């Protein structure tokens, strides 16, 4: 990767505007009802971007546009232009399945497959033919678990069902599963909302590590979390993007009154 130069300087710096994902004029409709209004947003590479906003403002909806998960909802239509690395992801010639392998997703509620821990991670690489041998696959599974900080806990129970893990472990398993297809982008929709503070800290730590190699978008309701982990923040309100910029700037000196009100807890 040629953009790794951006990283390495702590504390948090505003990333250079080197967007992986660029969205222009995105509108989303559920039937007749419009959920997203004309959103333009850039998501920088190898950094964490948080989407915040009151409930029902369309964060999840917009997030699901990025891996075209909305395609699975029959009444949902998306217009506008979303590009990843300059490639139009709504191009009819583009293969959605491949896109979803390249854009991993972690859901609000941990949803491991009711299969073994090993199978949970091996599934994605296997269907996409990412490994050539059993040995390679074993290594990949181990590496993903390692990265997700789960390897130590599950090393000798790889064949036990993934659903038998604790909630926090399950969510880390889902993160490991998401990175197993070697995505460029990881979308996380409130990944910590079902977790206790310790598990949350672990996941946040993990995100911190992952951002070295991945572009991460996280939807969160916790201002603290957004402030802690993300470098950039986008604030949505009633389906519109209100403000989008450097996290520190948004939390210390928001330019929009609504942002100010939201982060200070005046509505939401």
């Amino acid at each position, binding site marked *: 990767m040629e953009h790794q130069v951006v990283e390495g300087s702590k504390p948090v710096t505003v990333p250079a505007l080197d967007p992986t994902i660029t969205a222009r004029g995105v509108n989303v409709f559920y039937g007749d009802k419009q959920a997203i209004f004309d959103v333009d947003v850039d998501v920088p590479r190898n950094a964490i971007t948080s989407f915040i906003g009151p409930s029902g403002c369309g964060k999840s909806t917009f997030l699901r546009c990025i891996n075209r998960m909305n395609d699975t909802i029959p009444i949902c239509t998306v217009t506008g232009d979303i590009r990843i690395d300059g490639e139009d992801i709504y191009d009819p010639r583009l293969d959605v399945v491949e896109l*979803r392998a390249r854009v991993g997703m972690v859901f609000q509620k941990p*949803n491991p*497959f009711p299969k073994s821990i090993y199978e949970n991670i091996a*599934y994605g690489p296997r*269907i996409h033919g990412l490994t050539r041998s059993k040995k390679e696959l074993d290594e990949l599974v181990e590496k993903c678990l390692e990265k997700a900080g789960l390897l130590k806990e599950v090393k000798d129970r790889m064949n036990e069902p993934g*659903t038998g893990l604790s909630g926090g472990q399950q969510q880390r398993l889902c993160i490991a*599963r998401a990175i197993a297809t070697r995505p460029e982008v990881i979308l996380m929709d409130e990944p910590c909302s079902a977790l206790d503070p310790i598990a949350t800290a672990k996941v946040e730590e993990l995100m911190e590590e992952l951002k070295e190699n991945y572009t991460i978008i996280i939807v969160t309701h916790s201002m603290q979390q957004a402030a802690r982990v993300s470098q950039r923040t986008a604030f949505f309100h009633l389906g519109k993007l209100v403000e989008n910029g450097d996290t520190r700037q948004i939390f210390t000196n928001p330019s929009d009154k609504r942002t100010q009100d939201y982060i200070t807890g005046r509505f939401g």
Partner: protein
Amino acid sequence: MTDTQSGLLSSQHDWSSAAARKRVKRRYAADRRLQFYGIGAIALSILLLGVLFSSLMFTGYVAFYTTKVALEVPFAADQFDKDKLGDANYRGIAKTAFLTYFPEVTSRAEQRNLVKIMSSGAPYIIRDFVVANPDRIGSTVTIQVPVSDPFDQLYKGVIPRYIDALGQDRIALFEKLQRRNVIKIEGGKAFAATDIFVNPAEIPDGDITKADLHGMVREGFAAYYPKQTSRAYQEILAEDASTQVLRAKIEAEPGIVGKTVTLMLPLAPAYDELARTGASKIVNPRFGDKAEFVWFDKLISAGAISTPFTWELFTNADSRYPELAGLAGALSGSFFALLVCFLLSFPIGIATAVYLEEFAPKNKWTDLVEVNINNLAAVPSVVFGLLGLALFINTFGLPRSAPLVGGMVLALMTLPTIIVATRAALKGVPPSIREAALGVGASKHQVMLHHVIPLSLPGILTGTIIGLAQALGETAPLLLIGMNAFIPSIENMGLTQPAMALPTQIFSWADSPERGFVSRTSAAIMVLLGFLVIMNILAVYLRRKFERKW
């Protein structure tokens, strides 16, 4: 939050007031009542089920053993032609072997009656033995053959030797005669001392061969019942024998013409018995006469009778003789029909359900299809039978009575069950699993094949097995396509051969007059229920086995 709301919420409720306590009490009472209703309903259904099963067992268990008589059969080499082992005089061999138990019975007529104790299938059993064991020719072999149905039932205690021939009102009629001292017993036989007017007008030209002696006897006897409107009393006399007595009297004493004579007229057997013993027991008409009991008892005391388990119930084909009838044909017919039914309905049902549930666009047409599938589940099975008859047999020209067609018709019936069950099972897979699979880049069919279908397999299999169990017990459509063919041989069993199925076999046996078919019917029902229980246990087992948590 508005103030009124918080006011409502903050208002104190008194949980210990009398009204509140009463409410709690009522709630407990309602809980208990509901529980009681539930327990009552379960108890009732268990009771009814118990009655059903015990009555089945009670009538059916005797079919699981057969009364057999051991025949010592000497296979003399000169009786058989090596190339045509099946063609020897097996009837004669069986008869000779059986008659060795009764050297004292020599009259041909008696022997003919005697041999009726043995099942008519005995010659075939001996033939099958010889064909299977040609090396035994030249030696004497003990072969067990069933006794015929009445004796089988007699030995099992299902039917009595004697039955009550007369009802209460008949006995009352007869007792009237006894009170008037008309009935006499002489030499171990009962007679009615009847006054008969030998009417010369009834004897044209004095020729008694032309005389209506019958009418004279009747008239004379009717005088004892002057006010009876019912003619039931006419059964009391043995009419033909009485006429004989009158004729003999006139021939012996021509002078009595024009006079009244008192004749000792013999009684019908039931009344004879009643007069002599006070009870109207007669030999059960299923047997010829009492001599047969004597013979049969001789067999018992000779130790020739045994009651082994009826393997024939499972290995024999259908037969007109209940002691020989088995379920082999019905079992194979049902097996092939269910096989066809499964092979058709399982893949088609799952494919339909998966398409409708996961892929079909939601529009008027799919709604229509959906409604029709649900309605199909409610269509009476007879209609499917008619459809099968019209379509598969008359239009497509498939063979009648064949398990192939039976299976196709049953598949029509089973399809809706499988589709509905599969759709319910697919719906039961949480969306989060689909999202997870889609999220790692599984295509739609991969999501289905790798995740959703395996997870819904318990439900699908349960639905399928329940559908098949229904199909196994279905009778009406099979009757319509003729799958109640009487096939008394177990050769030529196959998909396109005429066949019987378990339920139609039960239907046909239940319809047969022979006493032995009553227990055979119950036994067949037990076999059918046994298969249903096994299938349901299998369904539960599969559900347990494939069930997974998420």
